[in-house]
């Protein structure tokens, strides 16, 4: 008896404890479940993170990541001092803040209004229709924008001309780019965005509404004093998330909507990274710009989250 327990004790020090061993044996199947996913994330997410170091090297294809010489912050300095830098920053931030300021409140308003609609059938119709554009692809959306805004025969300009105004070549005018980008985004996403607020509204205690009605509250007062506080935590979380993505204006739509005439206000960091990296094959420079972008995003996310925690007691972590 004694010998066995001694052996066990010894094992515990050399190897791992019996308890860990048992849980590992019991859980080994669970690790097998995770294996394919973990391999996927290592290959397509963690290896590229490791590959980020080419931003600090002069990448030479035949020498690979390891063999290419270190150059420190050269590429970052080049980017920050390039004439493109401020333009890219201003365009990226400009589109993003414009999008946030115009697009963030609209799903909330839509949800509040839908929630107060007594006629269920009408409510259902509005929901079905407003969700639909979410499923349209970006390519089709941009195709539609081009057709509708066409100076000769797009219906927007046909209407302008019917009102006796001159047609506007919207997509060739840099000053229109951001508005087109943002408004089409609202058209496509507002309905879908409202779902999450409707879910939050559905979770509000019905007794609150009944009590308010007994007290003679108007619908407007109910929205102000019950609905809005009820969806506040959801709104704050979504706001933090969007502020944390402020530098990530989607490449896809920005790139498709771009043309030589509106480039002045449409070139953003992600489209620039693509052009410099994949079209001009300046891998290291492009990776440095991409990394610069990610770092700003993370700094933003962390500080906004901290601020939100302080002000509203809602936070991501």
């Amino acid at each position: 008896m004694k010998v066995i327990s001694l052996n066990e004790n010894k094992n515990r020090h050399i190897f791992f404890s019996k308890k860990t061993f048992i849980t590992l044996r019991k859980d080994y199947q669970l690790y097998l479940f995770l294996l394919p996913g973990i391999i996927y994330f290592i290959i397509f997410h963690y290896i590229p993170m490791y590959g980020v170091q080419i931003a600090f090297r002069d990448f030479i294809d035949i020498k690979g990541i390891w063999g290419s010489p270190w150059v420190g912050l050269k590429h970052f300095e080049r980017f920050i001092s390039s004439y493109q830098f401020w333009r890219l920053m201003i365009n990226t931030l400009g589109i993003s803040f414009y999008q946030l300021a115009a697009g963030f409140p609209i799903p909330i308003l839509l949800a509040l209004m839908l929630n107060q609609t007594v006629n269920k059938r009408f409510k259902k119709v509005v929901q079905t229709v407003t969700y639909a554009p979410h499923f349209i692809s970006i390519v089709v959306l941009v195709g539609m924008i081009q057709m509708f805004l066409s100076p000769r025969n797009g219906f927007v300009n046909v209407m302008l001309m019917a009102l006796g105004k001159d047609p506007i070549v919207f997509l060739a005018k840099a000053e229109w780019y951001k508005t087109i980008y943002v408004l089409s985004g609202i058209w496509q996403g507002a309905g879908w965005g409202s779902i999450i607020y409707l879910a939050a509204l559905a979770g509000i205690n019905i007794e609150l509404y009944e009590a308010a009605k007994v007290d003679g509250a108007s619908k407007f007062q109910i929205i102000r004093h019950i609905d809005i506080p009820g969806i506040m935590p959801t709104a704050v979380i979504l706001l933090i998330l969007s502020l944390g993505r402020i530098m990530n204006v989607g490449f896809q739509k920005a790139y498709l909507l771009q043309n030589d005439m509106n480039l002045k206000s449409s070139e953003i960091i992600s489209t620039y990274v693509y052009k410099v990296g994949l079209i001009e094959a300046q891998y290291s420079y492009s990776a440095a710009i991409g990394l610069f972008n990610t770092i700003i995003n993370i700094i933003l996310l962390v500080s906004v989250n901290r601020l939100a925690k302080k002000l509203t007691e809602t936070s991501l972590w």
Partner: protein
Amino acid sequence: MKTISIKRSREDIIFDTMNYFLLSLALIVVLYPLYFIIIASISNPVAVQSGKVIFVPVQVTFEGYKKIFEYKDIWIGYRNTLMYTFLGTLINIFLTMLMAYPLSRKKFSGKRVVMIFLIITMYFNGGLIPTYLVVKNLGLLNNWMVMVVVGAINVFNVIITRSFMENTIPEELYEAATIDGSSHFQYFFKVVLPLSKAIMAVLALYYGVAHWNDYFKGLIYLKDNNLYPLQLILRGILVQNDVSDTMMDMEDAERRQALVELMKYGLIIVSSIPVLIIYPFMQKYFIKGVMIGSVKG
């Protein structure tokens, strides 16, 4: 039956009127462009060009659709996208379910570490070029597999699937199964999968739509036209106005351009048909999906 009946105040009547008015306005703003595409696609192109098509189609013609059917590239793209969507979604769902199951087990020791491992990738990534280099080194450039392998698992979807399993599959089932001598493997395939149909429908919807609409991966990783997904072909025609001349050998340049425009309207519809068909059936699922997702991060 004791109902509290309260007279609608004047304020509420004003509110309701405004509410219906604004929602109707939103309805029209969203619906009209979609409706316009439909009527424009079957109208005489010249009438569309001169702004005569506003509420109803003018001089109905199916010429645009005829041209689309003759355009070979579109159908190659269609075939490719159908394949990428089907195969890709299948892989997505399988891998997501596999990942979510262990994370939903209460007593799984590696849970926290794996969650952190996943969440890091949501906020930090190597970026375009390092990812491109990995794909290149794996020999996946200009290979159809890149379309189904890159993006095989979405962390957000793993999280909602995990919450679904935690909240809807009772722990007692697992206990009963273990007493009967079932392993995690048997339990997963015989109990968890059959009980997860709702979340798999949600996943199919999320992943499927993403595959159907994806042009980015094709743009970056593919060179060969025969591998292009539909969206990349659409980009050529809709956005870059790139219609091969052999298709439209017409002397009259103006009429040719009008026909190309007509084709574009039809193409938008043709390319959206699969989504349009399943949309009514999936509506109840995506509301569910967002609700599950919003339960807790």
